[in-house]
């Protein structure tokens, strides 16, 4: 299964479609980390992680997402989660991360949420 990452853009928002799993097993989480670090280093400040096709996440995957979220918030950016389900939703739920990291059930709603936040982030 591994992890497949597709990257697309909607305005100044970068969307990562994740498919497979983000675990420590065969370096999947490390792959996600590399992609996110590269994006942030290149100036991306608004990231939406589309988790609808992500089947499994472990603490290594969660840690990458949290680190990126914290890093983006420090730089006036933001990170959101789109459609976590099944085991992935369970992991985010039990860790109470859904209370902190904005999570959405449809993409349009997720994209809209970035715009007002982006304007107010520098205030």
């Amino acid at each position, binding site marked *: 299964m591994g992890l497949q990452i597709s990257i697309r853009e909607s305005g100044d928002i970068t969307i990562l479609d994740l498919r497979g799993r983000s675990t420590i097993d065969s370096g999947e989480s490390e792959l996600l980390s590399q992609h996110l670090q590269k994006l942030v280093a290149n100036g991306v400040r608004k990231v939406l992680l589309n988790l609808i096709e992500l089947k499994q996440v472990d*603490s290594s995957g969660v*840690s990458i997402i949290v680190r990126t979220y*914290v890093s983006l918030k420090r730089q006036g950016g933001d990170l959101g989660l789109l459609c976590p389900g099944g085991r992935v939703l369970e992991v985010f739920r039990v860790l109470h991360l859904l209370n*902190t990291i904005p999570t959405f059930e449809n993409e349009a709603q997720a994209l809209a949420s970035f715009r007002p936040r982006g304007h107010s982030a520098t205030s």
Partner: protein
Amino acid sequence: MTTPCSSAVAPTAQKTALLVASGGDVDELLTNVLASEGWSIQRVVDNQHILALARAKPFDLIVTGRETRVAEDVELLRKIRSARPHVRLIILTDKFTPGDVISAMREGAFSYFSAPFAASEVAEMVRAAMAEPCWDDGIEVLSGTPAWFSLTARCDLATANRLVQFLHGVRDPSISEAEKDQVISAFREILINAMEHGAHFDPSQHVEISFIRARRAIACRVKDPGKGFSLEELRHAAVGSSPEDLFSHATVRDEQGMRPGGFGILLAKKLVDELIYNEKGNEVVLVKYLDPPQSSALNQRHQ
């Protein structure tokens, strides 16, 4: 105990796989995975044909058919390994009993899938089998009954993954799949922590593990060979963060130049009911209580 892996097939030789037809998407997917890596594939219609072929020539990987009982697969494996100790044999089965997983581990199966299972998961394990040059002393069953089994696991991720798949193969109708997933996920986090922090993924080191199935609970003990730690001093882990600031450990990790992490113990703690460390901090017991069906709803209201 098997002989060292150095006697296995040379890396440059073409690898060969023997597959028993299972039907459906399993056959197609395995063929694609093996062919894409240049493996030679031989097919047989049932397990009866495996032994003669495996005795006549070495196969690097054998995948059984799902129609056979596990007891027969394990007996077959025992006979093959007496001549070919490093063969990687993956058991697929629709016909199993609660003790079959332990038998399969004890006899040195590479992996074990009991129905229902996804073809993609089998394909992934086949990829792991193809990539593992030295694997067959990774898991050693020390004692085993369906209610209590103990084993050691070599401190590497490939062995951890194999062990976790064996656990997924356990079918117990009295445990819901959701509860089983929670226990396995928690165990996996603790196991990888033990291998990483207790042994730095040193494959010469081993973790000790026991599983106990009581009538109303599942318990799992993991002991690593490390010097231990104190939960109270664990500032770089989320379990040491205040609930109001779950991310403060991330700052500590950044300051200390550590890789992203720190959610393993917290996640394990949330997925089971109790996580109990010994004084030294190198031994932990996970406990998951299993509610009787009639009281499940009441207990959920209390959570």
